[in-house]
């Protein structure tokens, strides 16, 4: 009898049931989408920032001081120590290697360059543009093109030559200020230490590179006779905003604390791991970038969390209101069942079982729709999808049950409080 009532109620009241189902599904769509977006937005923006410049700086240990004014390196390349280029891929082997999104090595020196029959002093910078590398079986590409998002090139990016090309002079970039001052144009050739270089693009960075020649690292290493050597590396790593624990000195921690610190992706712990993996390298966070971006990121995550809570409460209220409305509409049914001798318990369990089925169906539909929505939001705003963890599904279905039951329970209790005779006469 109970099941027949249940079944018939779904079969005969299709409109009512579908309205209730719609409301639950919509509420759960919001829940899923907001949970996914709110949870992921910090990571997405963090990744975006990491395409916009590095946050860790690697320099050789025991170096003499940098002599650098206005971004121009005034220390001759003959001075000081170097980092071995062949060590760089080892960064990928550190505990947080997967968080290292890219790195850009630099080797630079002031050189006399012949530009249009004029000899001038220009800083020559060697770097990776999009260098394919591998660490073990892990293959990746890194360089200025993916890390220094604000570098704009008019013309062609040079390729990263493994060795000096034989047939034609290698391609290099000319800084935009230098090009303007000297009249360099695309395709022009310049001469450095008796070797010819071809300008394939004009580089605009807004920084010191605008007055320099920027060339593939291996070309500059050959020109300066510094094979396999670099002066500094800028690393772009996904980090966790620093909190009080992250700022502590790991050498003064208990072993358990130190493990926890080491296994958290703080800028400092990633820097420590890099300096452990690469001999003679000092790794430090670029504080202007790291400290402040961390602060902004935690603000954004905090705001999304609060907005998510507000949206979830709203969804809960909306679903409860919808459930209450569909049950209030059915008080004459309650009256009829009670006058035929049904106990309050039977009536309540009938209504709640109905609500349970609706919650289950609505939860599943809402989860699927919400996952789709989150995916699309990720694509449109960040250009990469936001994926929903499967565990959210359990959470969402649970939430659907809680919300529908609270919404229906109040209405069912209210409907049962009335005298059946009064309800049936339509006077309630």
């Amino acid at each position, binding site marked *: 009898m109970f099941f027949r009532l249940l079944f018939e109620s779904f079969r005969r009241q299709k*409109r*009512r049931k579908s*309205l209730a189902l*719609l*409301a639950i599904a919509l*509420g759960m*769509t*919001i829940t899923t*989408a*907001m949970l996914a977006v709110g949870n992921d*937005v910090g990571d*997405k*923006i963090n990744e*975006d*920032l990491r395409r*916009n*410049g590095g946050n860790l*700086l690697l320099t050789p240990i025991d*170096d*003499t*001081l*940098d*002599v*650098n*004014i*206005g971004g121009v390196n005034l*220390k001759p390349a003959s001075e000081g120590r170097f980092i071995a280029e062949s060590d760089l891929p080892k960064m990928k082997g550190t505990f947080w290697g997967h968080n290292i999104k890219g790195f850009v090595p630099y080797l630079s020196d002031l050189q006399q360059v012949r530009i249009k029959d004029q000899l001038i002093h220009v800083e020559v910078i060697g770097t990776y543009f999009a260098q394919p590398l591998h660490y073990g079986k892990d293959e990746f590409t890194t360089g200025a093109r993916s890390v220094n998002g*604000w570098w704009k090139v008019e013309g062609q990016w040079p390729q990263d030559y493994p060795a000096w090309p034989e047939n034609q002079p290698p391609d290099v970039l000319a800084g935009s200020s230098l090009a303007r001052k000297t009249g360099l144009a695309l395709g022009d050739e310049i001469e450095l230490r008796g070797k010819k270089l071809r300008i394939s693009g004009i580089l605009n*960075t807004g*920084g010191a590179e605008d007055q320099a020649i920027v060339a593939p690292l291996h070309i500059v290493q050959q020109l300066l006779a510094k094979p396999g050597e670099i002066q500094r590396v800028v690393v772009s790593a996904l980090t966790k905003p620093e909190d009080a624990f992250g700022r502590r000195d790991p050498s003064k921690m208990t072993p358990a604390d130190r493990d926890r610190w080491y296994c958290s992706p703080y800028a400092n712990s990633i820097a420590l791991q890099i300096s452990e993996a690469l001999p003679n390298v000092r790794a*430090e*966070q*670029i*504080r*202007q*970038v*790291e400290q*402040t*971006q961390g*602060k*902004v990121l935690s*603000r*954004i995550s*905090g*705001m*999304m969390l*609060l*907005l998510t809570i507000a*949206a979830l409460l709203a*969804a809960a209220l*909306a*679903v409860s209101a*919808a459930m*209450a*409305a569909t049950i*209030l*509409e059915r008080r004459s049914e309650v009256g009829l069942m009670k006058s035929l001798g049904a106990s309050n318990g039977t009536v309540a369990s009938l209504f709640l079982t109905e609500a349970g089925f609706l919650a289950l169906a609505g939860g599943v539909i809402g989860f699927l729709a919400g996952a789709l*929505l989150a995916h699309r*939001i990720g694509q449109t705003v960040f250009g990469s999808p936001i994926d929903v963890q499967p565990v959210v599904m359990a959470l969402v279905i649970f939430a659907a049950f809680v919300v529908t039951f609270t919404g229906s329970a109040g209405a069912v209790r209210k409907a049962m409080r009335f005298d059946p005779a009064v309800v049936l006469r*339509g006077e309630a």
Partner: protein
Amino acid sequence: VSRRQLFIRLLLKAAWVRKDRALTALISVAVVATIATAGLTVYYDLENKLSREFRSFGANVVITMRNGNLDDSVLSAINSKLSGKGDDVPVAYAIAGGPDNSRVVIAGADLRHLREMNSWWSTRTLDSAGQALVGSRAAALYSASGAPFQVQFGANKIQVRPQAVFTSGSDDDSRIYLDLPDFTRLTGMQPNTALVRIDGRPREIQAAVAGLMAALPEAEVKPIRQITQAQTSVVGKTRSVVLTASAIVVVMIMLCMIATFTSSVLERRKDFAVMKALGASNRTVNVLFAAEASLLSLAGAAAGYLAGSAIAFWIGKANFEAAIWPQPLLLPPVLLGSVLLALLASTAPLRLLQQIQPAGILRGE
């Protein structure tokens, strides 16, 4: 009882007698209005709030004179362009000899001002009476214990007494910042560079940079793109996430509300049939139902606007430590939108009912 009195009585009684039904409808409208108001209020103010956070990034523009010094006329030109929305620190750089005769970059600036600008520096104060800020790498080389050391420029020498050692993770770590008068006495040089922080939204910063470029043709005005571009991208992406998410939530809850409204109208098919049987015209019934829906939704929207503004205010206080104030401009669209929606949601089922004979409904068919 006049027609008008009867109409008003029907309207109010319908709401009062079935308080729970009216309340359900009211809540469903209020929820939509709350989320729409909260989302949009946060969205409007987000650019300001986030841009305020970016102030702690310090200098986002470097101005360097091509020839000559950064004299008072240039400084006042910079300050007038900033007009209080930002800050600037004049700096002079030179290459000097350290105690071991190695080369070191020394700089002159107002030290207190410089520390304020570079608030992200991690500093360790050694001697508050000292007059130099020493970068951590320079300190490790010249004065590991914080003891005074000598720096020479040409024939001149100066005893550097470190006030603090700082770490910045940039070229600054290899530099020694002296108090400007000391620096000038040592080198005879005046500042030719200014570190400038422009506050404001990405667009305002761009405009200020363009203004500075036009006002100072003899100087190079260079925005630090890693900083300015990060701000543009973060602010832009965050705004679009908030807008998209709020829009989706509002649309979903709106559909929810329409479902609720529709079922509460359908529930009243008996009222509808009785009225019709007593001789009310379709128009009268429509107007009555529409008036009821408008009244409920107006009350719900007003409550929702208040609640939404309160939520936005609280998000500002809790997350940004500065209130997000209500947007009075949002009130009319929220009220109007809610009423329109409610009308739509209640008239559609009425049209459905009008196709059925009142007698049929009363018989329970």
